[in-house]
């Protein structure tokens, strides 16, 4: 089994930039190795008859002050230039790695001292450091290598530090520590391999910079000393006669540019390739018709929301929501339950008109307070949703603007939609905050979102929805991030809002016990469809769909039988990109047969208005799900 990382590196080579950069780099490296072996003699051959000549057939780039061939000298200098640059990079990277990994290698206290030193060193510009070290280590090639190497080190140390800190906070490093791994092994086995990619990218780019820096130092006379020569040295020699004989300076200059580009482009190409973390989703075209669920009967004037055959599709034919139909009346509380990927959140977003391109929402009917949302002009629709629809998200930290005071953000709604003045709007905001029982509302309205606890933010979010006179509140996992006692406060608040103002509530949750305790009716979603719709009071005894019953048996509640093992639903949830033919739950269902695998069952209502989509609902119904019926294992 190849490591998952390898294909990523192959992917780098498949891009046009990647291919050209890799080819160029390979050529430069090859030349660096081969040129000194092949052409050293030609480059050193002194010909006093041919001093400072221009380009000719014999000497493509002319000759220098001793009549040596410039072209060959540039080729041969590749070896020294690239070699020294790589050496300097290696010194820089290694020193940087050691310094950056100090917190792991030396422990917290000594690590902090090293980090502080690195932070100070980073503050100095690289060139300044290089010049400083060049003076310290003395003029000459080895001095310059050390100088450039150490000048590169602080930036690398800083990068390593950041990356290492991120990885060493992860649980698998903690687990290895608990297992008793030594510091060096910990670093070598768990930390370095997981930070290697960005480091390699940066090292490649740094090699390019080192090459340039080296040319610079040699050009200034601080680097390679005669009789040895690199590109910088050649450039300095050639520059003296630039006006008479430009080729002697242009040739090494071009070499520096080409080699520098090769390193930098290659670095960029792998950065881009490695940065694409996830593989592109493979979409599968599906051409068959979905069974269309009939609209539930018994609608009336009190209808708040009517949804028929709602579909959400993404390009390529993935349909995470496949024909969902339901209706909400005033003051009703309905819950949608499902696992991740069941389409419950997308359903809510589609109702709220919050699906963005390239997602597409279609529905035979999508009416909010009797008005077809799809056909309304944008302005009217915004006005309608702005005044009588509210949405509460899982993490209110991201739905409030962190730089604005809470009161202001609430007031804005009324300024926008109700035409209130600034002062009046703020008064209403404070009034609404009181209504959602935020203590000391007037004071808290002046605070910023981060000064609110999670539960309070959620209240403020509900308060924001109540700036108008909402007919529907959609709450998407509103309590998942909260503790049980706070969760209860927020749910109670929603419940009292519902009772006081006759507001309908659509509660989306993965937790069937929460939905059961809060809602009057429960819709169970699986793989983008509603598989069961029943009164909450009918749970658990009268649930008919095997998935609903398995879910109830798999999640322990406060009355779960302690001596029996919990039921296990084998397999895993359906990937929306690969919905199987037939009933989507068939692969995990103990009752599945040929019919289930062949055709998707329609959602059928019984006399009491309860709906279920299962070919065997009548066979399996009424009998509690036995743990033994569900195979153990995943």
């Amino acid at each position, binding site marked *: 089994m190849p490591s998952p990382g390898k294909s990523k590196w192959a992917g780098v080579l498949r891009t046009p930039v990647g291919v050209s950069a890799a080819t160029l780099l390979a050529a430069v490296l090859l030349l660096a190795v081969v040129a000194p072996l092949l052409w050293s003699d030609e480059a050193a051959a002194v010909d006093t008859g041919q001093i400072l000549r221009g380009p000719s057939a014999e000497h493509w780039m002319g000759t220098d002050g001793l009549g040596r061939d410039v072209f060959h000298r540039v080729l041969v200098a590749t070896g020294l230039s690239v070699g020294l640059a790589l050496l300097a990079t290696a010194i820089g990277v290694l020193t940087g790695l050691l310094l950056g990994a100090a917190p792991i290698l030396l422990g917290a206290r000594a690590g902090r001292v090293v980090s502080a030193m690195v932070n100070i060193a980073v503050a100095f510009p690289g060139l300044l450091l290089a010049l400083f070290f060049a003076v310290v280590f003395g003029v000459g090639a080895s001095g310059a290598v050390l100088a450039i190497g150490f000048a590169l080190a602080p930036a690398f140390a800083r990068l390593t530090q950041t990356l290492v800190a991120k990885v060493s906070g992860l649980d698998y490093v903690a687990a290895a520590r608990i297992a008793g791994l030594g510091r060096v092994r910990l670093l070598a086995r768990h930390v370095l391999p997981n930070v290697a990619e960005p480091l390699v990218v940066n090292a490649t780019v740094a090699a390019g910079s080192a090459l340039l820096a080296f040319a610079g130092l040699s050009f200034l006379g601080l680097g390679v000393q005669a009789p040895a020569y690199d590109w910088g040295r050649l450039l300095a020699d050639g520059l003296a006669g630039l006006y008479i004989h430009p080729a002697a300076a242009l040739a090494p200059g071009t070499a520096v540019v080409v080699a520098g580009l090769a390193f930098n482009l290659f670095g960029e190409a792998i950065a881009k390739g490695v940065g694409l973390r996830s593989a592109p989703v493979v979409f599968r075209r599906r051409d068959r018709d979905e069974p269309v669920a009939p609209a539930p009967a018994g609608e009336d004037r009190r209808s708040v929301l009517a949804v028929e055959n709602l579909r959400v599709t993404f390009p390529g034919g993935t349909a995470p929501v496949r024909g969902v139909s339901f209706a909400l009346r005033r003051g009703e509380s309905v819950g949608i339950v499902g696992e*991740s990927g069941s389409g419950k959140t997308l359903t809510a977003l589609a109702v709220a008109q919050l699906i963005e391109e390239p997602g597409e929402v279609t529905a035979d009917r999508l009416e909010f307070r009797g008005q077809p949302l799809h056909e309304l002009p944008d302005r009217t629709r915004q006005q309608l949703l702005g005044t009588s629809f509210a949405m509460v998200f899982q993490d209110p930290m991201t739905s409030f603007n962190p730089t604005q005071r809470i009161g202001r953000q609430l007031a804005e709604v009324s300024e926008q939609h109700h035409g209130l003045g600034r002062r009046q709007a703020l008064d209403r905001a404070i009034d609404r905050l009181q209504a959602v029982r935020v203590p000391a509302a007037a004071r808290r309205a002046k605070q910023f979102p981060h000064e609110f606890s999670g539960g309070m933010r959620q209240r403020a979010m509900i308060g924001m929805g109540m700036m108008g006179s909402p007919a529907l509140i959609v709450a998407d996992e509103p309590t998942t991030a909260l503790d049980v006692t706070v969760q209860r406060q927020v749910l*109670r608040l929603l419940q009292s809002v519902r009772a006081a103002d006759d507001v309908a509530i659509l509660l989306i949750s993965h937790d069937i016990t929460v939905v059961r305790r809060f809602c009057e009716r429960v819709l169970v979603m699986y793989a983008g469809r509603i598989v069961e719709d029943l009164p909450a009071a009918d749970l658990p005894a009268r649930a008919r769909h095997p998935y609903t019953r398995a879910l109830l048996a*798999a*999640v322990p509640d406060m009355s779960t039988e302690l001596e029996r093992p919990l039921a296990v639903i084998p397999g*895993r949830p359906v990937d929306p990109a690969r919905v199987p033919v037939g009933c989507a739950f068939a692969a995990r269902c103990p009752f599945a047969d040929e019919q289930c695998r062949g055709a998707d069952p329609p959602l059928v209502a019984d006399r009491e208005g309860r709906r279920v989509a299962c070919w065997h609902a009548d066979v399996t119904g009424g009998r509690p799900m036995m743990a033994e019926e569900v195979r153990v294992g995943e």
Partner: protein
Amino acid sequence: MSELRFEGVSVRYGGHRHGLTAVDTVDLTVPEGRVVGLVGESGSGKSTLARAAVGLIPLTGGRILLGGQSVRRRRSRPPLQMVFQDPSSSLDPRMTIGDSIAEAVPRGRPGRRAEVIRLLELVGLSGDRARLYPAQLSGGQCQRVALARALAGDPRVIIADEITSALDVSIQGAVLNLVRDVQRELGLSVLFISHDLAVVRYVSDFIAVMYLGRIVEYGPADQVLARPRHPYTRELLAAVSEPVDPGDLDPALRAVADTEPADPHHPPPGCRYHPRCPMGPAVLDDRDICREHEPVPQGHPHLAACHFAAER
């Protein structure tokens, strides 16, 4: 002997002025071969206590004993192992699961390969999966691997920190069954941390309730659940078992119910729960003692840190 005992354990983060005491003089015992469930809200110090036990966080005070011996003294491989919340981050993505488990098998033991296969089979995975990478497994399977790795060091105590909360609901049950089976089969002592009271109820013999760095109630699971003595425990139980309705509370009770959780940086004086307590000084007049004196846990074997633990 594999009794795990916390004696006056404190953990403090940060400096003197802006610090935070995440765990404050906690006494807690995990009896040999038993499961102790630890519940509490986020920020109550549950995970800090767990990480301190396995040595990931230094103690500020107190000691942790395993079978009467300090866990600090033991060298490299402590007989305490931990299973983490998120299986996707607790396994090295670049190592095969077999290598991850093998790494935790004590060195010098013959037949490492066979041991890895035995462990994989113990957690219900077939041995030929050892060559897979974590990305090729589901969340529930990864959590099984994490458990196998914890078992590789032949631990006597396992600390399970929210091990089901990152899993899809349909998979949680399988992991809970496994934990129970393995614990019974190997006679392990387990400290099982969760914010979910129903999950804790299902696996635990004893239950400890933590609030703002303190253990406020501890006792046999059935007693704590059937006859909770601390008002916070009662609140937790009500939150997960009663239907949600707005209710007709009187204003004082309502105000208490809507109080924000206390800031752990500035814990309230006296009993830490008093600002939120439905039978505390915010509701009843004669309860000044709650503001002034911290209650000492009392009762045997069912402890509660409340001045009025006997009342309801």
